[in-house]
């Protein structure tokens, strides 16, 4: 029932859902909108009836006592019960599911995202599965925007700017932080959004369920045609906030792995340059 009534959200113009948890958020948005629509229709109908019925022309003498029945009280109790259900029945349990049922460490792809004015630095741990250290003294906007220490765990790390690739149907855990001001990492189709706060690293997770190729197919013929997933900055962060976007590519596992290999080759090339 939760699903079927929640599916009103299809008519609310939400972006196509491409994550495993997205339908929960959509259902919840749908449910709240049921309450809103019902109340608004009720109020609207009541208002129209009263302004006609109690127009001074139709009703020249006002009644001192006004409403005597208790229907309105029942309606108020109804609203309270509905809100309690939304809160206790849906929002609180869903939110805790979305935020705390942490995926099992072994099967999770960990990615660090470091926001800055006005770009998204994406940091992969590389073959060893361990993130290298960072040091702000090493930051160089051209060659090393996150100040990665290139030895030890960091030797094989992959860092890209505004290019995030992820495998489809696998859990992803993002560790989000910021170098400068507050940003907010949102991918509307994945129903995820998280503020990036300097001085804090905030983890959150999701599972993409549709590859970019499939998604592009789906939006063929719409005004969005040809434009795939993007990270959108949702928190005012300066004058180029409006175009602080990152490109997200959801791939099949093979394609994702070959992308990683390709990126790893770039690291070697870069090192050749240095020496």
């Amino acid at each position: 029932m939760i699903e079927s009534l929640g599916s009103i959200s299809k008519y609310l113009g939400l972006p196509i859902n491409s994550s495993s948890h997205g339908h929960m958020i959509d259902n919840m948005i749908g449910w709240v909108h049921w309450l809103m629509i019902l109340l608004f229709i009720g109020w609207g109908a009541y208002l129209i009836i009263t302004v006609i019925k109690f127009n001074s022309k139709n009703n020249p003498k006002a009644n001192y006592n006004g409403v005597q029945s208790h229907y309105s009280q029942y309606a108020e109790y109804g609203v309270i019960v509905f809100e309690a259900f939304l809160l206790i029945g849906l929002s609180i349990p869903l939110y805790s599911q979305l935020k705390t049922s942490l995926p099992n460490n072994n099967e999770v792809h960990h990615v660090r995202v470091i926001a800055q004015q006005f770009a998204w630095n994406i940091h992969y741990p590389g073959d060893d599965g361990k993130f290298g250290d960072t040091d702000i003294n090493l930051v160089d906007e051209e060659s090393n925007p996150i100040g990665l220490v290139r030895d030890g765990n960091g030797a094989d790390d992959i860092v890209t700017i505004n290019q995030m690739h992820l495998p489809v149907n696998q859990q992803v855990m993002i560790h989000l932080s910021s170098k400068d001001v507050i940003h907010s990492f949102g991918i509307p189709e994945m129903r995820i959004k998280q503020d990036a706060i300097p001085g804090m690293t905030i983890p959150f997770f999701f599972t993409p369920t549709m590859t970019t190729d499939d998604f592009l197919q789906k939006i063929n013929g719409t005004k969005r045609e040809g434009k795939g997933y993007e990270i959108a900055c949702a928190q005012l962060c300066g004058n180029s906030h409006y175009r602080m976007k990152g490109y997200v590519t959801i791939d099949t596992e093979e394609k994702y792995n070959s992308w990683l290999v390709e990126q790893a080759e770039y690291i070697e090339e870069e090192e050749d340059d240095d020496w």
Partner: protein
Amino acid sequence: MSDSHHEESFWRKYIFSTDHKVIGIQYGITALLFLFLGFSLMMVMRWQLAYPDTAVPIVGSLVKWLADLNGFASDGNLPADLYNVFGAMHGTIMIFLGVVPIIVGAFGNYLVPLQIGAPDMAFPKLNMASYWVYFVGGVVMLVSFFLPGGAANSGWTAYPPLSDIATTGQTYWLIGMVFLITSSLLGSMNIIVTIVQLRAEGMTWMRLPFFVWSQLVTSFLLVLAFPPLEAAGIFQLMDRVFGTSFFLPSGLVIGGEILKVSGGGSPLLWQHLFWFLAHPEVYVLILPGMGILAEVIANNTRKPIWGYKSLVYSATFLGFMSFLVWAHHMFLTGMGQGMSVFFQTTTMIISVPSVIILTCFMLSLWGGSIRFTTPMLFALGWMPMFGIGGLTGLPLGLSTPDIHLHDTYYVIGHFHYVVAPGTIFAIFAGIYYWFPKMTGKMLNETLGKVHFYFSFIFMNGLFWPMLIQGLGGVSRRLSDGGASYAHAQEFLHWNVVMSYSAWLLAVAQIPFIYNLIKTLLADKSPNPDPNPWNATTVEWTDTTSPPLGHGNFEKTPVVHRGPYEYSVPGESTDFTPQTQN
């Protein structure tokens, strides 16, 4: 207590007056001008949103002149930097220089003493000081537009670190805010003391007009919520000017350079202090509007307000609860489960008294003999509009749907439904309703109705599409209206609809402005009716015909009954004044 015997000089009478009525009108005129300025900024921004990076028509050269002055590149278009300035200043001006001053400073000042039967505010000189401190705050904000780098550009929320590293305009913003906050504190202390101390004989608490209750609760909110923001504002000022790090963590790298500060501060501390004010602030914006509505509805239905006591208790409870919901603006800052459960729960609880207040107003119509005067039209328009504003707050107040809706246009749509067709409609209702008290002249009803119907249509044309864009995930504060983002592509055409609605909304204000000016210039009838609406409350029944002298009442009123005794069975008229024995 009638007119003072000696002739006061022009300056004492109209500029540095201590008469609450003059101060109220000073507040009203200043605030209306600021509302107009805030709206004008937005009309320019709406061009940029609908037609990004093209030259603004009509005022393009003005925009270019300002951009040049600020050091931004512009060919008559509104560049992103200046868009952010306009956005931040639109919010600041609308809230702190427009709505609060008009609804508390003007309406509160003018009406509270009259409605409770007092000769003036408790502290007339403090009252004058509060206006002039507000005035200085406004001037500081205005001057900041002409600085290099422009006025504040970090949003009305001024989140650090962005605001800490912003151009000089932000320093002026903070100084201006300190003045505005001080002004509000002086004004609200005055209102509280006036209501507690100066009620006329017989004006017991449960005989107070609901408007007075709304001002009392609002003043408590201001007195209790503003000091934390004032402190936070001074912290931010110190971060900017003296190199402290209240809101700056260690290890920031800005534009490739390590920021040379000691660090160790917390950007979230600001958000807590800011929203601890700013949530109660939204009730400051709406409660006095509800107060106006109660007066207008009772008068135009010719029957008592339904559930007066529920209204009073709900407003008081609302005021109290409004201090416990602030972090619902911060669900996505990484707060823990316990926090989010707490703040969602308090938010759902606070929605209950709001529903009760709206219900009381709607039930008040039942059994009435409704006169469709202009104030009443605005009051009737308020109900469904505030309804939409309140309802759209629900998904934002629940953390799960907020993941998708946070910081989108849904938020902008939500609070504009509350403050624009909400508070602003209440303000219009109040202006049409009390104008004859202030001036002795009635505003033209036909022009008033034209003003209402067109405002109603264009307000919806302006704010409804915001909800659609928000559900589509379009972020707020984007200076190209979303044109750069893939997911916004399907919603861009709404920007054009909204922009035309905004400009037409401006056109719809012409009958209002014309009406004001024409009526003010018209000859005054020699003996205007002191009570043209046949109202019951003291400000109508016990004053002389306008203009009222300093001191308000010829004879101190004595109150015998509640505020909304309309159509009392057995009485000869359909209104029984509070002071009728």
